[in-house]
């Protein structure tokens, strides 16, 4: 495993930012860390990078305890965060000139290609760049040393659609052999490259599995009933956010196997079915359904 955590925990005062998460990222995977704001994604990534000390549990990154990450490991890691602070008075060129000697594996061809692709002007001061351009600089500075692990914390946040596409294009073009751990709210953009999904809610890791498995078991269900359905029937917990509209029930199932099994359950719990549709869900819709369900739970 490139990343492995065991019961990783972090508190800020009395608030549990991260509560005992156990996450594993296999070599070559692209793991999308998703969840609502305040779910603990950024804190988790910062602990993995030894930017924050965990209160309990442990994390291993590139085979090393994250508390003992040294320059040797950092030379194999690319990290980009939406809050990253660059040396403000340096120009883009000066910034890259400063970075090059720090890495023995720095590839000038990759650097030139990304800087051309992102249209980064060499003479512009970093402090004068827009947020989008600064994110491009961060990403361009995270790839030329061909990192074994790329950790991206909301790299697409605040970027317009065009820039998002450019950033994702640049990322995909230069990270084919890289393991990626990526937190983002822009799920449409990352869906095509993610191999695994980790969903966090209030500091807990709720889902951690491959994209295929998530796609296979999550379905948007619309069921129409004949006669008088039992609207007050107690529905399984794996059916998220059920909503009645007349004789039609809509919900998200997290345990889909096939239509036949689902029809049987609906008929036995609610009443005779008139029609049933089960639609595959995008990562974005899956995430929305999960966030809504956990919010509802919390409100209760």
């Amino acid at each position: 495993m490139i990343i492995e955590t065991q019961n990783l925990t972090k508190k800020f005062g009395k608030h549990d930012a991260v509560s005992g998460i156990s996450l594993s990222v296999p070599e070559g995977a692209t793991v999308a860390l998703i969840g609502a704001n305040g779910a603990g994604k950024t804190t988790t990534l910062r602990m993995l990078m030894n930017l924050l000390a965990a209160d309990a549990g442990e994390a291993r990154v590139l085979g090393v305890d994250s508390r003992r990450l040294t320059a040797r490991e950092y030379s194999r890691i690319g990290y980009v965060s939406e809050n990253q602070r660059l040396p403000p008075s340096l120009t883009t060129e000066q910034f890259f000139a400063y970075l090059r000697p720090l890495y023995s594996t720095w590839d000038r061809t990759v650097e030139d290609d990304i800087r051309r692709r992102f249209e980064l002007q060499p003479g512009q001061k970093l402090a004068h760049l827009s947020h989008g351009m600064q994110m491009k600089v961060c990403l361009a500075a995270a790839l030329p040393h061909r990192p074994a692990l790329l950790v991206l914390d909301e790299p697409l946040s605040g970027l317009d659609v065009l820039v998002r596409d450019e950033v994702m294009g640049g990322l995909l073009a230069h990270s084919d052999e890289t393991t990626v751990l990526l937190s983002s709210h822009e799920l449409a953009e990352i869906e095509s490259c993610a191999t695994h999904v980790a969903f966090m809610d209030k500091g807990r890791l709720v889902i951690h599995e491959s994209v295929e498995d998530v796609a296979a078991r999550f379905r948007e269900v619309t069921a129409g009933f004949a006669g008088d359905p039992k609207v007050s029937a107690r529905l399984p917990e794996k059916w998220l956010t059920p909503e009645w509209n007349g004789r039609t029930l809509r919900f998200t199932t997290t345990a889909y196997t096939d239509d036949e099994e689902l029809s049987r359950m609906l008929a036995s719990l609610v009443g005779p079915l008139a029609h049933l549709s089960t639609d595959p869900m995008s990562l974005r819709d899956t995430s929305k359904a999960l966030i809504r369900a956990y919010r509802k739970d919390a409100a209760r």
Partner: protein
Amino acid sequence: MTVQSRACETAEPLMRWQAVASIIRKDLHLLGLYALAGAIWMFAMSALFHTYTDFSALMASLGISGLGLDSYLFAVFGIGPPVALTLFVILLAQTNVASDTRHDWLIRPITPLELVASKMVTLFCVIVAPMIAGNVIYMMVNAAPLEEAFAFFLLILTCCALVLLLSWLVSTPFRAVLVLLGVFVLLGVAGALAGAIKVAVGIAVAGAGERPDLTPFPNLDENWIVELVAGIGLYVVSGITLWLLLARRKRVAASWLFVGYFAAQMFLRNLLFSPL
């Protein structure tokens, strides 16, 4: 071959000079004018003024002794440099902020040794080297022994290093200044506390109105062995502080250790060695 095993094979040295040079270049880009002004000031100060009488002599040579500008010149050139140097060191520390997790350099392959080395070289080039060069000129003009030109430079470099370390423990230059002031207050409190304890014990032993000196080892005040032990302790504590801060990201623990060392030293010196 897995990524982990590949990582283990490539042993990085503790310090790479090209990385040190790169950090120095970056710092000089960021602090260019401050660094230049600092170097010129240190050189000019060392070459022109060594004692208070140098200011009077300058006034006399310009034929304006009557204006009484000596004290103003002393204020500008005598008190200004330590303040300016302190600010420069604080700014130098802030080019690699260690206390804010958002700064880019924290996830770059920079070892603590490379970072400290780069800062010390910068401090030497901007402060110490111009000071020595200015001193050499002063000594030559005044026919004084040349070895005096090198007096105190290690002490100045050590003071700069301590301010640098203290600045790393806080996140902004403003806080660094506040913390420096706070440290002076803490040292004052530690010294006063030791004195108060001795007075209280004296009263308890000899009665009110009597103040016998109960300092256990007054002869060891400013003893070289004590100073050596304190100096070694300072280097050890500084090293541990840097390790806690840069490798373990334990800023609070590092801050307490570093500041606590000075307070404890002040307390013990006053309690054990300083006559009442």
